């Protein structure tokens, strides 16, 4: 695998921009010709994966389409039908399979995602250095919209890093440091760090995952090409994106943690760390089970470099800790080979006002995280993780238990903290878990290459 052609791949796929604010616009197309001319106008705005040798830009723009959006752009039927079934159906129709039921069911989603007549056709993501930079870029996009009449903006989602003391951080609303675990892929230029790719047979070293786990048109971890639409040129260098707006019930989380911590011998912060698998500062408890250690959390050579092979009973990091469930590393044996086709790349940012621990909060406050995940196969990667590792516990030897943080518990969930005979690390069971996170909507998107965008804009998609 040589280097990928970064100028043909949307930058959002190849790197987390690490820009502090973002705005996600949701577009609706009316007329295919006008919509295609809009895309032609936007082409020059789209941020590619090329290196930023001259420093970070003020803002970036990326675009992705729902299957309905591609229909409205009048892609040939013979192309539309070759997209994977789950993408054709969209996330709403996959609700039962994903466990998006109860409070997470589509009935409770934001109106944007419930409208049966006016659907979301495209996602336009703007990331920026500042809100002013977002405004400037949006004004330019608005003028393209006005001049072409290609689309209407149905809704707009603001998102921003949590600022503490005036500086952007990677904290999320429950108070944990986030964003450690994105995988490395062959051919993607990135400062790699141990623990972010796949575990090698020696059980110690790490290597990048096959490119085809992220991008269409390349071999995946099984040596196969991922299922992709025809023609090849439309699919290659593209990927699929999951967009989920996850509301966080911060008041419920804090009250639950306080209540349980009063019964737990290890103390509140340790219990919080057991939920996630990291202390709030990001220190992995597998590496430092007794206390946070900033020399680990802040060292890229240590913060993601750990395995569970020496902790199969979960006495350091519980078997059900969020981190261990969604990225089990070697926890299922075989030096981690069982999980290499189930990895996803996460993007996204928190939304809503941040409240420090000493500030009052209510579940009704509009805050959460815009979760976006990229993968070559929605069904094999994101949907599998969601269905089997988040909403079920069998692979983690946890029976029917769901992920403590993300699970759709309905007040009946359970989380077991495995422990030992010491006073500071006792075994503990949290019962009657409420829903800490609620889904407020989202969909599946196709994020095409620059070439494919041009083909769509010019009406050149030809499946023959």
């Amino acid at each position, binding site marked *: 695998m040589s280097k990928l052609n970064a100028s043909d791949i949307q930058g959002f796929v190849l790197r987390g921009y690490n820009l502090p604010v973002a705005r996600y616009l949701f577009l609706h197309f009316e007329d295919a010709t006008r919509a295609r001319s809009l895309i032609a106008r936007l082409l020059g705005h789209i941020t590619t994966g090329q290196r930023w040798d001259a420093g970070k830009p003020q803002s970036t723009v990326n675009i992705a389409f729902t299957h309905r959006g591609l229909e409205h752009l009048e892609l040939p039927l013979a192309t539309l039908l070759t997209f994977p079934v*789950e993408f054709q159906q969209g996330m709403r129709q996959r609700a*039962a399979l994903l466990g998006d039921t109860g409070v997470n069911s589509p009935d409770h989603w934001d109106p944007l995602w419930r409208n049966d007549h006016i659907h979301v056709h495209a996602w336009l993501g703007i990331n920026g250095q500042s809100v002013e930079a977002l405004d400037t870029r949006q004004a330019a996009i608005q003028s393209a919209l006005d001049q072409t009449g290609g689309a209407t903006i149905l809704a707009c989602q603001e998102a921003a890093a949590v600022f503490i003391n005036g500086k952007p951080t990677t904290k999320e609303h429950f108070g944990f440091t986030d964003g450690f675990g994105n995988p490395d892929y062959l051919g993607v230029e990135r400062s790699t760090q141990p623990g972010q790719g796949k575990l090698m047979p020696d059980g110690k070293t790490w290597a990048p995952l096959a490119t085809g786990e992220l991008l269409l048109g390349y071999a995946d971890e099984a040596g196969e090409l991922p*299922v992709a639409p025809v023609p090849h040129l439309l699919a290659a260098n593209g990927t699929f994106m999951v967009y989920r707006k996850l509301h966080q019930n911060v008041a419920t989380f804090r009250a639950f943690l306080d209540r349980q911590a009063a*019964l737990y011998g290890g103390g509140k912060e340790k219990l919080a760390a057991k939920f996630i698998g990291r202390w709030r500062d990001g220190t992995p408890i597998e590496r430092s089970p007794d206390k946070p250690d900033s020399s680990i959390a802040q060292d890229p050579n240590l913060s993601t470099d750990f395995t569970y092979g020496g902790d199969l009973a979960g006495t350091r990091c519980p078997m059900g800790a969020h981190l261990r469930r969604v990225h089990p590393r070697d926890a299922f044996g075989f030096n981690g080979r069982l999980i290499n086709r189930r990895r996803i790349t996460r993007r996204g940012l928190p939304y809503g006002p941040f409240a420090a621990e000493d500030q009052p909060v209510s579940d009704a406050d509009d805050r959460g995280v815009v979760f976006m995940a990229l993968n070559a196969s929605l069904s*094999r990667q994101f949907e599998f993780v969601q269905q089997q590792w988040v909403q079920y516990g069998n692979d983690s030897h946890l029976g*029917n238990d769901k992920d403590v943080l993300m699970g759709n518990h309905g007040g009946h969930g359970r989380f*077991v903290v495995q422990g030992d005979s010491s006073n500071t690390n006792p075994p503990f*069971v949290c*019962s009657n878990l409420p829903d800490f996170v609620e889904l407020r909507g989202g969909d599946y998107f196709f994020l095409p290459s620059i070439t494919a965008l041009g083909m769509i804009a010019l009406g050149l998609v030809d499946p023959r």
Partner: protein
Amino acid sequence: MPNKNGSVYGLTILSPIIEDEKATPSHDLQIRNYLAKLSIREESPFAQAPGTHLARLVVMDDVIYVGMPACEEHLKSKYLVFESNCDGELDTYLTGLATNIPEHLDAIWKHCVGYPGAANCEAFVDYMKACQLDTTFYFAAVNDKSVPESLRALQTQSAVANFIATHQGADPVTLQRDFIEFAAHLESQPPPPPGSMGPYREIKTGGRNE
């Protein structure tokens, strides 16, 4: 013994399906239709007969040619494939099926060549054995535990987990008193019915390339 792993038996049976151009729908389709509508969980036929850990019934039409460099081959007939992880001795297991779910067996296997019916138990067992292949290498559902033992273990695990969850921090006297009562109650309980211990999950497919 290639078909056994400890006390768990790996059964593989291939029964040729009747080829009859006049049958409409064809016999293989009639089997597919019946299998597609079988109940799951406690109502599954394999939950109603003793000794099945997990079982699978599949209609195998033919070997599909996938292109070069494979060579093109075909089966002599369509087959009904029956795979089962089951307890104990094969004769006992097959007799249990014939005794408990004869109507299901007949509805499925009547479309197979030479099937004698489940009413004649001896003939049924002989027929199944005549269709048997050595399994040699298989996924063991559990490690050397019978179905009743596995169900009892699941019941105990679930009950003990509930007991722990409701007694964390209890004083030793209460804990001992409640535990003695709990253990006696648990022991008096019958094992849960097969198929009842999982979460309710509709059978759903996730699309291509699972």
